[in-house]
């Protein structure tokens, strides 16, 4: 019955930015198995369609938390779902961030790519550096929460500032090139637009971080979540089950091929 969604109800809806909202979903009756950071669910908006959305927090009480950016018909319907709306959920699907044996943790997020990394930041390593970029200050997610992350060195940067922005302007690769890091102890988790992840990985490789300790979260069209529909192929990978989190040694040659 892998195609049949489990009904969840929107408990709360938090507006994050002008185009993004976070939904907390509670099971109507039965609940799904626990999700791990980096995994995703297929969220179904009644009569509109289904899209893959990562979990953006794991409260541990069976509530599913998803941050949805409105970019198409389905994500708009989910983004707009008022408390009380029933959403169909299938999952958990895909690979999780590999966090065993992490010493120093480096988290780099671009735009909505921060959502799948937020559950990792909730449990930082002893030394954690977090760099987030967005197009404008209005596009930065979870700003209130992120400015108070304890034990995390946080760097925020935007492509275009405004009158109220006193922070950095530029790509996430710039602070990445200069922050102090110990390449032999660092595990890097990257999520954002593909070019961003490629350039971040290149910067990290240049600083001596081994490719084996760089993980990226990749996106392709996903319709089934269980390796049956064929849409999410990236070379040999079916990203719904071999991804979204992929080690950089596997991802690099695939990302360097155009239109793969």
């Amino acid at each position, binding site marked *: *019955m892998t*195609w*049949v*969604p*489990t*009904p969840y109800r929107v408990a709360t809806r938090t507006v994050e930015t002008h185009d993004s909202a976070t939904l907390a979903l509670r099971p*109507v009756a039965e609940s799904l198995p626990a999700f791990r950071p980096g995994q995703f669910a297929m969220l*179904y908006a*009644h*009569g*509109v*369609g*289904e899209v893959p959305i990562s979990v953006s927090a794991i409260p541990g009480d069976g509530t599913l938390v998803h941050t949805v950016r409105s*970019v*198409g018909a389905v*994500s708009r319907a989910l983004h707009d779902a008022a408390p009380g709306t029933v959403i*169909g959920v299938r999952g958990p699907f895909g690979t999780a961030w590999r966090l065993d044996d992490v010493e120093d943790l480096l988290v780099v997020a671009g735009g909505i790519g921060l959502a799948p990394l937020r559950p990792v930041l909730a449990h930082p390593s002893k030394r954690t550096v977090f760099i987030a970029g967005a197009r404008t200050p209005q596009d930065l997610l979870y700003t209130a929460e992120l400015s108070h992350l304890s034990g995390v060195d946080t760097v925020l940067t935007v492509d275009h500032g405004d009158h109220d922005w006193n922070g950095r302007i530029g790509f996430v690769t710039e602070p990445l090139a200069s922050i102090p890091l110990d390449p032999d102890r660092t595990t890097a988790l990257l999520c954002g637009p593909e070019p961003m992840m490629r350039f971040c990985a290149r910067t990290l490789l240049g600083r001596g971080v081994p490719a084996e300790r760089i993980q990226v979260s990749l*996106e*392709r*069209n996903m*319709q*089934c979540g269980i*390796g*049956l*529909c*064929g*849409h999410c*192929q990236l*070379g*040999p*990978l*079916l990203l719904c089950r071999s991804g979204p989190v992929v080690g950089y040694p596997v991802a690099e*040659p695939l990302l360097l*091929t*155009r*239109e*793969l």
Partner: protein
Amino acid sequence: MNVVLGLDGLDALVGVLREEGHVVIGPVLRDDAITLAELSSAADLPSGWGVETGPGHYRVREREDAAVFGHSAGPQSWKRFLHPPRRTLVSSDSTGFHAARDDTPDYAFLGVRPCDLAAIAKLRQIVASKLPFVVAAQCTEPGEVCFCTSMGCGPGAGDGYDIALTERLDADGHRFLATPGTEAGAAVLDRLPGRVATKQDVALAEQDVATAARRMGRALPEVDLRDLLAANRDSAHWEAVAQRCLTCGNCTMVCPTCFCVSVEDTTDLDGNAERAERWASCFEIDFSHLHGGAVRTSGAARYRQWMTHKLGTWHDQFGTSGCVGCGRCIAWCPAGIDITEEAAALSQTTEHGGERR
């Protein structure tokens, strides 16, 4: 025990399978092609009809004999029964979500060629479906676009049949050597009029299949295709194919193993919604749609995806090749693109140090 059936035995086979509650599907002549449809008796089989195939070419022709399985792969495959073109998955209404009822009939497939027998096994790795009763027809006459031998999928039947038939017409008459593959197959054979096969019957059938292997019109290059395609992601050859490819997706529709589907919603005015899968093709622009646009827009990238998946990355995903050598993609390509020629071209450019874009 091997049995020799006559045409009456073949007709009895259809009758017994129908009696046992199977919907018997087999080859029939329709619209100037050998298609697959329900059989009410062996008289529905395309007796005396053969086919003539080539790149971008398929014609039925009248044979000089009355063979019923004397035709190579047609425009349809058994995929349309095991993995229907459209299938409802789930419906939702005010009371919740409901799984669609599986109303797949209890099929018996009659006249499954060895390439298609292999395709059924590959498809069933991906698509959960009831196991049909399978009567294979060993291939004694390959078509011009066939290359099953080089894929290890024919012309003799591999595993997965309940009964395998080998047709023969000679001075001794029109007959079928029937070999049981399962207990169910043997039980069905016990109920048919026929005679016990002699060593001579078996030897002739083996000889006919061995001759067919030598008459195979085409072959894929004898290299590790998975490595070849992985090494050629950036080959300039993809652009050369794209100049001929219409990205119509015919190859994916006729392929007996292409399984990709898209999921779509339909709603009614009462607020009920239904989700259904339908066959999709990696040649559709929307196939790789992301919110920033499609990943694969060029014809070169889409052809590369299809051929690389079929011959290469299928191994990574399912531990086997996705191709069985049936040749349908060659015959039904309106531009006559031949997967065996394109693989050979890639293999040649690779031998010469690789041609890069």
